[in-house]
């Protein structure tokens, strides 16, 4: 039943954009049909995934596929868990698109958007339910290519084309690595089926090979720090709801792939968990540090995705270490943090990107320092963005807190374990705390500069609230964040099922999440906190009748203007300079001197550490070294024919019996 529903959903989403292709550009029905199909498909898919989650029975259907061995698709708890954000965001994003990317305003790109949006969602659903490497690759490529067309939707802008190409390069490197991975898998296990490997079936070096290939391919997609280079550009240049699904769901497919492969391999060595933990810590910390240095709202959110992927990887690393050292508590807490953060991040990051989309929609700019004071014209968006910001910072009473708290608990349990391994793992806890603190600083900067204060430009001053089709999805996501934050107990059976699916533990030896984490107490504290906040707000509202009118950042000046406010850059300047060894902000400042100084300005910019300082210069260097090769490529067909002829002759000349000719000559 669950699988049938999901297949129906997959078909609905895959074809959602196609009817619109028959209609004319001016017709509004192409978008309406696409959204209706997406919503129906999403609903069916969500029901299917829900059934799959609550009845964690592995259902599988096999399709005859002679060339590749029979293909299998099936839903188990892990697949169903990842299907939820896929279908949820697929549906909500298309509804959001009604207001954000209406066919009337974007007749040129609208239909393309719907076709590839459907392809993206269907591709992800297929890859999540496939239990066969080739079917997995099909889904993976459908997802990757649809995402490319969505990123480069506005291909009349050069920066958009550039971001699309960089993404395409990155994703193809990932696919190539996946080919390698599955060839290895086939060679080692004897089939393309993704089935658990028996104990001691593979030697350690083979397992290591499979793990490192999987790590490279999937962390390229997930955007783990040293290879996240495609991510900021793609998330910035895509339309906001595309950024939301990219960041909220597509990145998670990397996490899914990694989890799937890890769940199939028995007896992981401790280096894997350690490596995942270190990678997680690096991307978590540097992701948020780079986010602090950004001036572009969506680029900043993109770097926060790197940070959150880091937190997810830290949880995964802890769980893997738990499997290696045989500590079921670490596995349960680490996986619970990892999995729940997958959901949470897809909810609150999509919420934030939707909020950023409303801001862009209302003001036409993404530059944080050109906005300001938007809380007054856009109260809904401001409130929703605040919910998302509190959630992403990992503050109670919202959902981000719960998942980070699981990881914290895991680290602290590890610290109390006897032995050096435990205390080494505990280093993760202060790093996670630091990530949280920096995230708070970053979102204070964003929220303060964008929604508080007064408008810095006329565009921001004439902002308007988003239409209901955009507010609705945001409200839904905000409510989801709040529900998970206030009642995490609801999710514990789901998480238990997925963790059991991941670690392969038997019914008897399994720890349940409620036994290692005091979920009910946390709920009570969160609700109490919420009540306190509401009471405080009510109290202040009742007594605060006297209002002081003035600018938020007026700094005590008598006649402040909007230009005298703190800017986002100046707010973050201290932290940026603290991390200038990695951020290396570029910028220039003209000196102001004399009694009547000339107009002066300053600007700063933070390059991406990998893309702008390693990859681009490296490729330029490579291009110069191989410049001589250009003379072989002159564009003359005759020359190319000559190359073919030379090759043919060289190959034929291997037939010349040189040995016999020599023998003949010498004999004479």
């Amino acid at each position: 039943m669950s699988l049938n529903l999901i297949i129906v959903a997959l078909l609905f989403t895959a074809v959602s954009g196609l009817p619109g292709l028959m209609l004319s550009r001016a017709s509004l029905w192409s978008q309406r049909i696409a959204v209706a199909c997406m919503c129906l498909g999403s609903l069916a898919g969500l029901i299917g995934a829900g059934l799959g989650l609550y009845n964690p029975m592995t259902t599988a259907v096999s399709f005859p596929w002679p060339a590749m061995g029979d293909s299998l698709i099936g839903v188990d708890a892990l697949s169903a868990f990842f299907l939820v954000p896929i279908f949820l965001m697929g549906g909500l994003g298309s509804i959001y698109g009604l207001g954000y990317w209406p066919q009337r305003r974007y007749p040129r790109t609208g239909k393309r958007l719907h076709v590839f949006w459907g392809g993206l969602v269907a591709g992800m659903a297929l890859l999540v339910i496939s239990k066969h490497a080739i079917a997995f690759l099909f889904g993976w490529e459908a997802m990757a290519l649809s995402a490319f067309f969505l990123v480069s939707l506005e291909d009349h802008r050069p920066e958009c084309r550039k971001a699309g190409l960089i993404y395409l390069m990155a994703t193809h490197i990932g696919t190539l690595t996946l080919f390698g991975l599955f060839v290895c898998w086939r060679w080692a296990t004897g089939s393309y089926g993704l089935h658990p490997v028996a104990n001691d079936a593979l030697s350690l070096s083979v397992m290591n090979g499979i793990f490192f290939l999987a790590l490279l391919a999937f962390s390229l997609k997930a955007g783990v720090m040293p290879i996240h280079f495609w991510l900021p550009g793609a998330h910035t240049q895509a339309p906001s709801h595309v950024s939301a699904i990219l960041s909220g769901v597509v990145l998670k497919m990397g996490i899914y792939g990694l989890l799937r492969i890890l769940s199939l391999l028995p007896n992981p060595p401790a280096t894997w968990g350690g490596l995942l933990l270190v990678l997680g810590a690096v991307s978590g910390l540097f992701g948020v540090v780079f986010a602090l240095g950004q001036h572009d709202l969506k680029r900043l959110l993109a770097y926060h995705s790197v940070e959150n992927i880091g937190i997810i990887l830290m949880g995964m690393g802890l769980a893997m270490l738990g499997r290696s050292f045989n500590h079921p508590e670490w596995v349960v807490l680490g996986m619970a943090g990892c999995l729940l953060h997958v959901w949470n991040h897809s909810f609150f990051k999509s919420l934030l990107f939707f909020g950023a989309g409303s801001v862009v929609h209302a003001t036409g700019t993404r530059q944080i320092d050109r906005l300001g004071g938007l809380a007054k014209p856009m109260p809904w968006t401001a409130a929703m963005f605040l919910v998302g910001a509190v959630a992403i910072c990992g503050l109670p009473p919202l959902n981000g807190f719960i998942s980070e708290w699981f990881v914290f608990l895991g680290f602290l349990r590890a610290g109390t374990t006897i032995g050096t391994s435990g205390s080494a793992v505990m280093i993760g806890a202060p790093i996670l705390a630091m990530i949280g603190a920096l995230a708070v600083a970053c979102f204070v900067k964003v929220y303060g500069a964008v929604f508080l204060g007064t408008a810095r430009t006329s565009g921001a001053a004439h902002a308007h609230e988003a239409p209901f089709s955009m507010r609705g999805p945001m409200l839904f996501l905000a409510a989801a964040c709040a529900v998970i934050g206030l009642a995490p107990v609801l999710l514990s059976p789901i998480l238990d099922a997925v963790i059991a699916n991941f670690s392969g533990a038997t019914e008897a030896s399994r720890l349940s999440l409620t036994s290692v984490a005091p979920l009910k107490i946390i709920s009570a504290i969160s609700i109490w906190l919420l009540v306190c906040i509401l009471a405080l707000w009510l109290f202040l509202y009742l007594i605060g009748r006297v209002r002081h009118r003035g600018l938020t950042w007026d700094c005590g000046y008598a006649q402040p203007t909007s230009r005298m406010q703190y800017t986002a850059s100046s707010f973050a300047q201290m932290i940026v300079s603290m991390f200038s060894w990695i951020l290396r902000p570029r910028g220039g400042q003209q000196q102001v001197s004399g009694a009547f100084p000339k107009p002066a300005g300053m600007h700063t910019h933070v390059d991406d550490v990998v893309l702008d300082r390693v990859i681009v210069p490296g490729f330029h260097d490579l291009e110069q070294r191989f410049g001589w090769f250009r003379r072989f490529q002159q564009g003359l067909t005759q020359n190319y024919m000559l190359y073919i002829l030379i090759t043919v002759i060289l190959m034929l000349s291997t037939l010349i019996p040189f040995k016999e000719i020599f023998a003949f000559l010498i004999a004479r």
Partner: protein
Amino acid sequence: MEMLNALLVIVLVLNLFALGTSRILSVIHIVATQGALLGVIPLLLHEHLSLPVILAAAAAILLKGIVIPSIMIRSLRAAQIKREVEPLIGLLPSVILGALATAFVLLFSKQLPLAAHPVNTLIVPASISTVLVGFILLTTRFKALSQVLGYLVLENGIFIFGMLLVQAIPLVVEMGMFLDLFVGVFVISIITNHINQAFSSMDTRMLVSLKEE
């Protein structure tokens, strides 16, 4: 067998004629003759003549001997050019080159690792040397129509090689190959016409300007 070898020798001689002629119209005639001769070969190879074999041979003769040449002659007239003015290497050197290639292939074709060597026929050397002559035409001539002719000679070479498998290839596949060829030449002729009208030149070297910097 004698008959077959005689035909193949004529094909080889026609190759050299094609290399040594600068008038494009003559080259078209030569290639047409070659194609028509090749169409006869399957009739000689089959022991029992059946309807499909006769159909395929008739199609080959009709297409290579009549249809394609007439299309090309039309586009030649439209283009108002008569000869290949400046080939990359002169006509005589290219004839010598072609002859050398033919000799080379005749000497060494016995060394080819084929599954079953056809006894006493020239099929393999004739096919390879025709392919090589096609390549020489393709690399040394610059007019668009000469390029098409080079391609046709190349295809003729491949066709001769296909004679080795003549018992095994079904009619449908053979017809498919003819259709391919026909459509290819048809399209190229139309394109050359348009290129000629738009740029008043048929020199393929102009295509260099399409190259990305």
